[in-house]
């Protein structure tokens, strides 16, 4: 297992280098002169030239990339002018808020999705099974920002049960109750789509394995139907469910950008939304880099989990 983790870990290195290259090139492709953006169009040609030299913009492109990597290794992602702060600081401050939302959403989606899918698979074709299919279809055909707006309308404006935004700091300075209340709607919004996909995948993977010979063996030994599904079918269905959960985590990161915007949740997503509106290129670059690296690391974790649930891979 350890050597599997090590080997899989090694494969990450080139991917991460590729990601840095992509974010670096992104700044080259985005039209406009960074000096223009930083200094405004009224600045003198002399001042621009000075800035270009200072930023290394007159160097050949590979030198610029080397400078970018060097800064990156020192944790320097440039300066965000929207927030008048180093990009690293902007991201670090918001990373916690985004992670909190993403982790809460993936937990909700995984636990509720696996539970709902298993529950439906216990009685395929039953009313509960068909009911689940309808809900799945409903969640899957609804854009998450729209669900967010509907939830705001119902729970925030109509029933006045839950706050609809205005979370300033998720580190809990205003108490855990306020945190949970502020998190409820964004978490549900972010989780809904993935929850539906996970539920559907769990159901179909369980039904795929339920006709296996080893299930028949367990039945022929008097094992109860509930144990058959929970202890025999579910573990064998888990590898495909985990793969889907892993893919959902990626979607969830991108979904967080929209959800944070709808609920003004102070995370990386909201910051990136603001950065895009003001063409704050270093912040866009930094945000994408962090999200992409997070995506790669999540997939790494998913692969390890996958191997854990699939003994053939673990030992092979």
């Amino acid at each position: 297992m350890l050597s599997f983790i090590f080997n899989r870990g090694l494969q990450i290195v080139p991917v991460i280098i590729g990601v840095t290259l992509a974010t670096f090139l992104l700044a080259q492709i985005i039209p406009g002169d960074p000096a223009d953006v930083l200094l405004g169009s009224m600045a003198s040609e002399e001042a621009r030239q000075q800035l270009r030299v200072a930023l290394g913009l007159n160097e050949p492109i590979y030198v610029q990339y080397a400078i970018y990597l060097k800064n990156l290794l020192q944790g320097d992602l440039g300066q965000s002018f929207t927030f008048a702060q180093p990009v690293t600081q902007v991201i670090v401050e918001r990373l916690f808020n985004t992670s909190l939302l993403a982790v809460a959403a993936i937990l909700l989606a995984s636990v509720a999705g696996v539970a709902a899918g298993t529950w439906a698979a216990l009685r395929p074709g039953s009313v509960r099974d068909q009911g689940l299919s309808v809900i799945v279809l409903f969640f899957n055909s609804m854009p998450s920002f729209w669900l967010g707006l509907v939830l705001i309308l119902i729970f925030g404006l109509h029933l006045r049960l839950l706050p609809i935004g205005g979370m300033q700091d998720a580190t809990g300075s205003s108490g855990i109750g306020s945190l949970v209340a502020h998190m409820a709607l964004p978490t549900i919004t972010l989780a809904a789509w993935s929850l539906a996909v996970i539920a559907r995948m769990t159901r179909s993977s369980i039904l795929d394995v339920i006709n296996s010979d080893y299930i028949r063996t367990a039945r022929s030994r008097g094992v109860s139907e509930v144990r058959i599904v929970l202890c025999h079918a579910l573990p064998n269905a888990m590898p495909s469910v985990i793969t889907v959960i892993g893919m959902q985590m990626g979607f969830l990161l991108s979904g967080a950008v929209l959800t944070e915007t709808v609920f003004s949740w102070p995370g990386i997503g909201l910051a990136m939304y603001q950065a895009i509106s003001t063409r704050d290129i270093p912040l866009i670059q930094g945000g994408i880099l962090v999200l992409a690296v997070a995506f790669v690391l999540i997939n790494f974790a998913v692969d390890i989990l996958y191997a854990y649930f699939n003994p053939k891979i673990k030992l092979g």
Partner: protein
Amino acid sequence: MILAQSSPLRPISANGPVLELKNLGVAYGRGAASVQVVHDVSLAVERGEALGIVGESGCGKSQTMLAALGLLPRGGRITSGQVLLEGQDLVGRSPRQMRPVRGREIALISQDALTSLNPAMTIGKQMAEPMIHYGGMSRSAARQRCTELLDLVGIPGAAARLASYPHELSGGMRQRALIAMAISANPKVLIADEPTTALDVTTQSQILRLIDSLRKELGMALILITHDLGVVAGVADRVAVLYAGRVVETAETETLFAAPRHPYTKALLDSIARIEDDVAERLNPIPGLPPDPRNPVSGCAFHPRCEYSREICRNALPILEDGTGAQHPVRCHVDPFVSSSLRAVGGAR
């Protein structure tokens, strides 16, 4: 595969068969799409007796036995008949009512050893599951019992094997583990569905000998399903031959080998691979294929492949005699070997 010796006939107990199928029918689908895969099968096995069920692939051997255990896959259903366990009918029981029967009264070794063990569970865990959850055993007692069982079926290093996953075991070892699981609750009837397919020849005869000795040791009745008459020769007391979902002949094993009455049985006997032959090759494979139950054959289902077929065979289904006469039951209009079979057993049966 062991052709030479046949086990001595056991005395038949007075208090009736332990498991009896009466006129059992199995079908898939409903209405016009309904396909009858087992027709009117009646079989009985006495306490401690070994019954062989023989027939080509697709003739309904597995479906009959799965129906008896209430384990037909989705879409399959029992259309007629009874499954009597010590006189109690099991047909129509709910899954909850069937559970105490499974494993404890009737145990199954299913057809494919390679896929019949849960790949995501250790051998020990899957063996012990019913003991702990339904047998009221403690974890350590179950562990102890599993070790004994693996020992009993000849798995070396039994205690260490409990922690193995199925893919870490060879095919023969997996089959042994399945046998250990099947006998773990001391069933009265053990159904072994082609326990030796997918194993090499040496392992095949080892597994057969193991099953046979366990049966005698534990006093179980055994239903041995196979497509190879050679397999039942050394093990079964009696044999039922199935063709196209129907019993076509039943007899004591010796009688069946010495004096088969049904042309299909005769053809099967002629096709046995003899172990003393260097080339383990079918001598005379039966020409043609068994019918697909979706396109049933009129009259006697064997008639397209039968060299003794007559007009009546195409039109009328032969009935299975009840075997009260001098000869054992057969389902054939023509009964072509009648004189030779009378000669062989001296007409005394």
